[in-house]
């Protein structure tokens, strides 16, 4: 989120803007927290008190909160979250297993890049939602289609980012290593790996977000269990508060997985700290 700090062009200076720009990070966080509270209060007023918006469609914050209590205490989350988590982890794991060797090959070998590349791009350009009915017909109604969609959604960003990382490795560093007598096998861990890791993790973060979208698509359209199935059931029984609570849990899951990826990156590859988002 570099946009916080960027100056950008200004057409006619505004005093509010200048004051806000001068705030410290902590005051900004305070300001945003205050905003959240005000917005939630307004939302509660508009929907819950004045009923300007039909609360069946957009429930008030308090009814989402009570919906959260309901799905947690009724065991709905305990019954559905593990299925989603399992499908996500298996699908993402498979995506890693496939994407890392393929991405390496794509980055290193020109024939693979020219032959596999275009085919992979054509599949990647099509949103994974298109493959969902096929997955359902092939893998039945269990966890299979969800795993498949998570895999298809996550594999390409990881693969392409990895390949891009290898291809953009600074050639003068490679030449320098060669001058100092680095063998081909020394070159990979010593030169390619460190410069590719930031790309790999950028791909992993994209993969995490897309994997969750794939999981939701698969679960919403016809899974028996999972958070998506819970959202569908709650919506169809007009318990939209519960549906929003379930969506909130999925959102928290996605954001925490992205954060976990970033933490792993800092731990595994501390030299990337501060580089890229």
């Amino acid at each position: 989120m570099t946009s916080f700090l960027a100056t950008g062009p200004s057409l006619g200076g505004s005093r509010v803007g200048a004051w806000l720009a001068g705030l410290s990070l902590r005051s900004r966080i305070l300001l945003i927290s205050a905003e959240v509270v005000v917005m939630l209060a307004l939302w509660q007023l508009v929907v819950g008190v004045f009923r300007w918006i039909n609360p069946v469609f957009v429930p008030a914050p308090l009814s989402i909160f009570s919906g959260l209590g309901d799905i947690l205490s009724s065991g709905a989350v305990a019954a559905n979250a593990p299925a989603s988590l399992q499908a996500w982890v298996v699908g993402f794991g498979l995506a890693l297993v496939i994407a890392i060797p393929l991405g390496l090959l794509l980055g290193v070998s020109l024939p693979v890049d020219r032959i596999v590349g275009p085919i992979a791009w054509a599949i990647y350009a099509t949103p994974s939602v298109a493959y969902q009915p096929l997955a359902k017909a092939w893998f039945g109604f269990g966890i299979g289609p969800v795993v498949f969609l998570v895999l298809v959604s996550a594999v390409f960003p990881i693969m392409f980012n990895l390949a891009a990382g290898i291809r953009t490795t600074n050639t003068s560093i490679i030449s320098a290593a060669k001058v100092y007598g680095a063998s081909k096998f020394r070159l990979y861990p010593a030169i390619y790996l460190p410069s590719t890791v930031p790309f790999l993790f950028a791909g992993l973060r994209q993969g995490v977000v897309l994997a969750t979208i794939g999981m939701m698509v698969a679960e919403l359209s016809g899974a028996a269990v999972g958070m998506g199935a819970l959202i569908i059931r709650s919506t169809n029984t007009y318990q939209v508060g519960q549906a929003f609570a379930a969506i909130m849990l999925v959102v928290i899951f996605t954001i925490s997985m992205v954060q976990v990826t970033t933490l792993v990156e800092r731990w595994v590859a501390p030299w990337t700290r501060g580089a890229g988002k």
Partner: protein
Amino acid sequence: MTISSATGIIHIDPDRRPIKTSNTTWRIRLTLVILAFLLIWQAAVAWFKLIPSNFLPAPTEVSVAFGELVVNPNFWSALAFSLGNMAVGLAMAIGVGVFVGIALGLSPALRITVAPFLWLLYSTPKVALAPIFILALGLGSASKIGLVFLLAVFPVLLNTMEGTLTVSPSLVNAARVYGASRFSVGWKIIAPATLPFSLVGIQRAVALGFTGEILGEFLGGAGGIGHMLEYAAYKFLMDEALAIVFVMVIVSNLSLGLISIVRRKLAPWDTDQKGM
């Protein structure tokens, strides 16, 4: 290459550069690989019966189904329904996204107070809201257009904002010194710098809008190509299902390609990276 230095003679292997092969050669090889793949598929399904053909039909069966699809007027009306919804939703998303994005880019006050929420919304899987859209807006076009808009607006908006931020304030000041009006600053300095970013956002928006439209059709069937696909797969007409998936692959690739061409035409100075 051999280099003589004070410490002796060093022998350096010349860089093994890939032999230059022309683009056409690669295209021919790519076509051959695809043909070989189709041949193996055909052999596995139709000749050796390794895979049951009602599970994965042979390429010939899929192409027959594709041929039937192309002459079927229902298919064209379904495609028109889906593309029409997408076009309306995307047009709204682009209009709102570019307008709000530029406003956010130009106003630090708005950016500090609003942008964090937009980033949060951008990274949340909004597809999860699809059932609620169907519930609130019904089974017709409105719910799909709403979903397309919701999924597509954030990439356009945030990319436009980032693009506006890359404009150097000194350029704006220089233009003003030379007496440029607010309008011409906007048109001649901010728009050209922002455009490539917006187009990258629009490329993402098309993919996400497609997801919204098709998922909306899966959940609340009232026509559309997604509904047609779902129905074919449900009936286990895998040849027709694969043909429709093929159509979707073509449509997505064509629309992304089209935007790439627009990007190269309108912003030739922008390096063409496949934006996803």
